[in-house]
């Protein structure tokens, strides 16, 4: 399902053009409706389901998602303070793999396309992709990647090895003993070392009789394909120990969890040292390490990635735009600029600035270049470098009025209020939506503003459960077209280009269980920026990002604790992140069904 452009070239027959317009509109509806798909109370294979109860369509109503703190602004469950969520097995994501081999081998020769793709399992409830299972193609990709990396190691063997290569088996033993704990990111057993020294000796001998360099390469290749390298899991020699009904994560697992969450790669030497000396068992040490990592370059990318995933900002680069309708949004340069500006915006607040949550939805200070200036209607710029700019405060305020968000949620040939509304409802309010109908209705109004068309459509019975819920939020963005350009009027008839009508962005939205009459997206941003419901949802989304799964009731007490710290810090995002990584659900886990424990 996708938006279809209104054809403007290559179509001769007027009759057909009208028909296509009709169907394009229907398809736009279809795309929006399909986007309403939500899962209430669903679970994944590991039993880690969203536990939202009630009908998410009733925004602000009685249905309180018990697994999402404050998602409807109602009373929150206190949760069990001794509980912690599960830790389902996952392998390294694409970016984690690339970052890890960069840190481990100083090798940046691989590209993401050479690795198994990450898998968006349920975009509505989980705002970020998670790695899929390792199938045959994925195993093949890991195999090929490992061989490529091993070949590169062979080419620099003399400087890579900690010993003289001529020592042969003795050097191999030393190499594995020193290298394996880094690759596995934890202490290793003699048996695990023995796996590789045995392999080395075997291939050095008959019948293969590999050269020393080839044998070292094979060992590196094997290590990089092993579960110890590929998976995130407690694999240390001792079985996990129960602490009450949960398992306290060992210091190395915490170090890994912290590092992959905050910088997307393996722990650095400082973090390894903290794991080795046992201080990571202390929440204070975890907090100190988190603050240290948040100041590192890797955290900047993590924050960018979080907002990309949370708000689907990367769609701004990939969402097709009709070249006849939006010629200004065709080049790779303008699409890259839109995403870079959004990245700059969020990191300037979360990493470099005040950390203020409300600024994310209200600030009109951003950056611009020659490609973005026309879209923002600001003074012309020269050059591709993004420079500071102050945007018109009557038009822009916060990430939701950025070109990136508006283009990502815009259609191919126009704005689509349900898409923007759905983003607000599912991603900022943590509401779930019902399923769309199977049959997409024929549009009933072909001439009018976008809002008029959708309002007419919304009179149909089949729209009651979804469009009528999400569109009030989407209508707040009616001053923005499909690529985020501000407008006061809208063209209403493809057959009559001079026909326009003023746009209407006034709407009433329900947030924190209360109705808010707002004028436009600026007003919506103000409401969202100071909403308990959005605070709770934002904390939940970060928790999901941190632990790599959907939240469960076992996370509730931890989320509450983090929200308390968030409020105490005047809603500083950095403090929220630190509070989450020191929470019980980040440092402990519920044993999995069927798991062998001591």
């Amino acid at each position, binding site marked *: 399902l996708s938006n279809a*452009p209104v054809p403007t070239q290559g179509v001769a027959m007027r009759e*057909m053009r009208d028909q*296509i317009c009709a169907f394009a509109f229907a398809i736009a509806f279809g795309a929006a409706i399909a986007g309403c798909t939500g899962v209430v109370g669903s679970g994944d294979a590991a039993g880690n389901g969203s536990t939202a109860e009630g009908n998410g369509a009733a925004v602000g109503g009685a249905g309180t998602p018990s697994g999402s703190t404050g998602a409807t602004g109602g009373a929150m469950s206190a949760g069990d303070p001794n509980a912690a969520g599960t830790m389902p097995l996952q392998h390294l994501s694409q970016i984690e793999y690339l970052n890890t081999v960069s840190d481990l081998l100083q090798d940046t020769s691989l590209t993401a396309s050479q690795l198994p793709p990450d898998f968006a399992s349920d975009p509505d409830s989980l705002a970020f992709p998670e790695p899929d299972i390792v199938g*045959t193609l994925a*195993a093949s990709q890991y195999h090929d990647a490992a061989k490529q990396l091993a070949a590169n190691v062979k080419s620099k063997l003399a400087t890579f090895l900690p010993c003289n290569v001529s020592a042969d088996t003795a050097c191999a033993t030393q190499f594995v003993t020193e290298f394996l704990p880094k690759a596995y990111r934890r202490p290793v057993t003699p048996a695990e070392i023995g796996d590789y020294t045995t392999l080395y000796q075997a291939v050095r001998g008959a019948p293969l009789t590999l050269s020393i360099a080839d044998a070292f390469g094979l060992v590196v290749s094997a290590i990089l394909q092993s579960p110890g390298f590929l998976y995130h899991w407690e694999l240390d020699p001792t079985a996990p120990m129960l602490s009450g009904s949960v398992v306290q994560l060992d210091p190395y697992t915490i170090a890994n969890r912290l590092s992959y969450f905050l910088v997307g790669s393996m722990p650095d030497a400082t973090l390894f040292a903290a794991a080795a000396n046992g201080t990571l068992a202390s929440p204070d040490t975890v907090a100190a390490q988190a603050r240290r990592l948040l100041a590192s370059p890797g955290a900047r990318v993590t924050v960018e990635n979080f907002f990309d995933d949370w708000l689907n900002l990367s769609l701004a680069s990939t969402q097709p735009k009709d070249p006849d309708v939006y010629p200004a949004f065709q080049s790779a340069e303008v699409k890259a600029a839109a995403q870079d500006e959004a990245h700059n915006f969020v990191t300037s607040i979360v990493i470099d600035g005040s950390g203020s949550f409300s600024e994310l939805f209200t600030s009109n200070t951003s950056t611009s270049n020659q490609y973005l200036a026309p879209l923002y209607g600001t003074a012309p710029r020269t050059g591709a470098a993004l420079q500071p700019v102050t945007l018109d405060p009557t038009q822009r305020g916060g990430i939701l009025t950025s070109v990136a968000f508006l283009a990502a949620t815009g259609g191919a040939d126009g704005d689509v209020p349900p898409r923007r509304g759905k983003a607000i409802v599912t991603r900022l309010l943590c509401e779930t939506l019902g399923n769309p109908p199977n049959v997409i209705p024929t549009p009933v109004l072909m001439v009018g503003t976008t809002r008029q068309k959708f309002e007419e459509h919304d009179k149909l019975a089949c729209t009651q459960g979804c469009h009528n819920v999400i569109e009030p939020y989407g209508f707040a963005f009616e001053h923005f077209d499909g690529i985020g350009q501000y407008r006061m009027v809208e063209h209403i008839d493809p057959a009559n280009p001079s026909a326009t009508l003023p746009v209407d962005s006034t709407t009433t939205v329900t947030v924190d269980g209360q109705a808010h009459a707002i004028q436009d997206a600026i007003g919506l941003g103000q409401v969202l920026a100071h909403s308990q419901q959005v605070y709770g949802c934002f904390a939940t989304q970060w928790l999901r990002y941190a632990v790599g799964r959907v939240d469960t009731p076992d996370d509730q007490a931890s989320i509450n604790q983090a929200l308390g710290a968030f409020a105490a810090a005047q809603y500083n995002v950095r403090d929220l992140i630190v509070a989450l990584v020191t929470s019980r659900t980040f440092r402990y886990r519920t044993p999995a069904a069927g*798991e062998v424990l001591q």
Partner: protein
Amino acid sequence: MSSDRYSRRALLKALGVGAAMLPLLDAEPAFAAGGSAKRLMTITWGNGVFTPNWLPTNADLTVAGALPSSLAALQPYAKKMLVLQNVHLQSMLDAAMPFGGHFSMPCLFTGTSPPLNGFVSGGPSIDQTISDALGSKTPLLNLGAKSDTSSSSWAAANQKNQLNTDPTSVFGKLFAGASMTPAVISSTWEQDKSVLDLVYNQLTSFSNRVGAADKVKIQAHMDAVRALETQLQSMPMLSSSCTAPTVPAGVSGTSVGGASISKYPVLVDTMMKLAGTALVCGAASVITLDLMNDGGGNDLTFPTLGIASPDYHAITHSSDTLTKNPTATVAVQKSTIDAWWYKNVATLLGILDGFAEGDGTALDNSVIVSANDMSIGHSTKNIPYILYGGAGGFFKTGRMVDTKGVANNLLLTTICHAMGLSTITGVGAAKYAGNIDSLLTM
């Protein structure tokens, strides 16, 4: 939840094939009574067909003019085809999804309904079942010329087989061994095997530590490692008489989307040639090829066919309303695209039919299936399935057969029989058991 639900080992047990057979690398296919087809390939794409220019005008496909314009490229193979009518995705109909065509790709070869608006299957697809049961030296090969949002191939319920969309990668997997000396091939294989055996053993130990749900993931990884071993070992089996196709420059890494749409025809053509050559040269026995998702947008246009706008989805919807006017511009556009798909299928058929085998050709001993995941208006009824190849005389070809409204499960069972899996009584839910006798040579 039982781990068996996710493991095709459970299916193999049900078929009487021991789980221990999975890593068996040296077994020859053991065909049971029934058909004796040597190879299977499924080809799938979306957005339906424009029926007035697709439906044969005569049930005897060998009659001149029986194949309409959309199928014109298939004329040389008319006597080796079976065009099916009224095969329904019954499991989706029974799940109240009569217009669920945008989500039906997982159902085409599994016979199981996805959840409402979901892209997952409820069981394995027959390509996986057949590949596993044959114990072939060559593993299942899943190819794509599209993103793998959806897939026609499933290892098990909820376990989608990933598509290799990179022709250079596919070439390397299938044919790179052709340029190596036997000694190099042997050494490379032994090295790879030593590594993969170690990985397999580590995964086995690892599996003992995790919970039930994670064991399923580890088992899938272990299955993948064994399949990879099979794949790597098959490389030296390539006959020296086989000529590997070339992969044109600039086509790797392309897929449907943005500027690369101009290269899409080359990508599809290359995949067809790689697949066809792999089949006749014994580099693969079971292949799936997913060509295009449902949907539209500017990236799903056909500028190389002179149709840069509107997009494929919009054309399809518009043409749906013009079934009584097949000469209208949009109907012609849809039919032009349909004809292009089948022209590419004909490229594959040409490779198989040009390869002498026994008293006939490789095509005569194969089962090739093309399918679209919907018919007009997103309907999950009357799916446009076409079979090509006689399956070693199993099928009575050269005909259009009206099945009078059977579940696609029966077709899938029949294909399993054609591939020699005669003990299979049904695919999918038990209530859809049975086959389609009217397709067979009696």
